[in-house]
């Protein structure tokens, strides 16, 4: 693993060597992977951590009184410590491992939504949420009589704070659930301000950090959040693992979500009692190997340093926006003051799917579609966009290739 000092600029070429897949060819061309916002590639450190666990030190966790189980339990619980440090959570018991962000939000919608919120209360989400932060609340609305309110965004792609405040005014809102960074527009939301506003009106706040935590340091205590979720595979970790952080007092008030082994204190047919947090929310054999992989990913990112990553990506984004602005007929969506390395665009002459296919033939991977944000598409008056997204391993040369590639697509279709 490579590491820079936090303030030094990234030595991207050295970091790229940590990601074996970046040396692959696609359609005979060098892979230019600009789809990291969908899922990031994995450094050798992550691959090795998982393989080594399987090769040398593995057994089921928590219930074993033998060496392999004890060591594996240490590694699994060590991953919980690593996540707690990453988020600066005050208490390691507040970290719950889930499959992904989606499951983490569903867990909150289920256990907090049905177990703590009361019919007649409301949940606020924004117009620029991922489906993962929409559908669970709709299901809660339909099953449990919770009102769902939608905070509008401005044309720049920022939360309309005045409108949000108006939605909170009647103090019926029990939870504000908002993305910390839009996966379409790249906008960062003012998380600490959102939390203050929610709290001022007696609501809790959930931040969907699926995108945000990939690019910037997150401190749940500084943000004063109540719930924070993210997903391992976007943070250079494996699939199959995600995280819910929540304040302990909330977790303790919430009923369990899934039932089974490891989440109980005692079971009899008449009645079961629940284990203490976090185990209450982790039923069955957890994603042990994936937690180990996630811990390796976190160590990798921390060794590089968020400051350096953020600076690198900010430079890439600026460069990309400047280049794309010069392409006739190209429209970039989102103009938030505070934005990260995700750029969505459309081209007048070609549908985003066709753009993606033609870029792919040049080795350039971008995503096209509604990006699991149909209501946002609706708000923007479009059906879909093409989206390029940047990671710590993205180079300026790749951004140049994107711009050139788009020009060729344009030519092809006109």
């Amino acid at each position, binding site marked *: 693993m490579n590491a820079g000092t936090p303030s030094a600029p990234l030595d991207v070429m050295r970091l790229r060597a940590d990601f074996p897949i970046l040396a692959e060819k696609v*359609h005979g061309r060098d892979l230019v992977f600009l789809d990291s916002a969908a899922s990031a590639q994995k450094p050798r450190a992550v691959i090795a951590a998982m393989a080594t666990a399987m090769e040398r030190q593995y057994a089921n966790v928590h219930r074993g009184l033998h060496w392999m189980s004890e060591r594996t339990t240490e590694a699994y619980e060590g991953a919980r410590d690593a996540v707690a440090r990453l988020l600066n959570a005050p208490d390691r018991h507040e970290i719950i491992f889930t499959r992904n962000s989606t499951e983490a939000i569903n867990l909150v919608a289920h256990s907090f939504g049905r177990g703590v919120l009361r019919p007649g209360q409301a949940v606020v989400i924004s117009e620029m949420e991922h489906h993962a932060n929409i559908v669970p609340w709709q299901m809660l609305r339909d099953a449990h009589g919770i009102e769902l309110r939608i905070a509008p965004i401005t044309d720049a792609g920022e939360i309309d704070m005045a409108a949000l405040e108006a939605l909170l005014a009647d103090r019926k809102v029990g939870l504000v659930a908002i993305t910390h960074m839009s996966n379409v527009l790249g906008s960062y939301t003012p998380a600490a301000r959102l939390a203050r506003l929610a709290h001022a009106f007696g609501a809790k706040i959930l931040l969907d950090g699926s995108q945000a935590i990939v690019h910037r340091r997150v401190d749940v205590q500084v943000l004063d959040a109540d719930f924070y979720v993210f997903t391992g595979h976007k943070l250079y970790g494996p699939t199959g693992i995600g995280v819910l952080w929540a304040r302990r007092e909330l977790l303790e008030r919430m009923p369990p979500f899934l039932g089974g082994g490891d989440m109980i204190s005692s079971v009899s047919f008449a009645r079961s009692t629940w284990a203490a947090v976090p185990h209450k929310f982790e039923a069955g054999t957890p994603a042990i190997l994936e937690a180990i992989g996630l811990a390796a990913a976190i160590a990798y990112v921390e060794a590089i340093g968020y400051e350096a990553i953020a600076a690198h990506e900010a430079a890439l984004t600026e460069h990309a926006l400047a280049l794309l602005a010069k392409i006739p007929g190209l429209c970039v969506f989102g103009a938030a003051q505070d934005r990260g390395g995700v750029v969505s665009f459309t081209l007048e002459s*070609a*549908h*985003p*799917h*066709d753009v993606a*296919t*033609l870029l792919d*033939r*040049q080795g350039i991977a971008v995503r*096209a*579609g*509604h990006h699991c944000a*149909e209501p946002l*598409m609706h708000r923007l008056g479009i*059906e*879909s966009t093409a989206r390029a997204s940047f990671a710590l391993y993205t180079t300026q040369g790749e951004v140049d290739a994107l711009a050139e590639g788009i020009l*060729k697509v344009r030519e*092809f*279709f006109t």
Partner: protein
Amino acid sequence: MFEELRDLYQEVILDHGRRPRHGEKLACFDAEARGNNPLCGDRIDLTVKYGPQGEIAKVGFAARGCAISIAAADLMAETVAGLSVTAAETLSRAFQTLARTGVPPALDPPLAERLERLAPLASVHEFPSRVKCATLPWHALHAALAGNKEASSE
């Protein structure tokens, strides 16, 4: 650069994609259905007018989607006009095989000729994620002919 892509985006496809001939819903129709590709957001609203013998007289659609899906819908509207429902279903199955494998299945002469007109779409089979773009209109047609309202290309 895009030599191989000329297979996928042949002139006829680019042309039908840009200027579909049947790209409007019929004002007067007997059957309709919506086709939906949830993974990418493509959508087609299809209308069918039957002729006096119950044959397909006319197809019109409103669609949002890529060049491939618009062209596929337009070529479909063109080739099924005049066919009986049974013949259209046979052609539909044959086209789906063509799109998935690149190989046209054997058909009786009149239908084989119509399938030939769809041949420009054969090369989608090399683009697995685009096959659905080409087959979605046919799923919608099937739904409309069967009297259903919704089709999905999953």
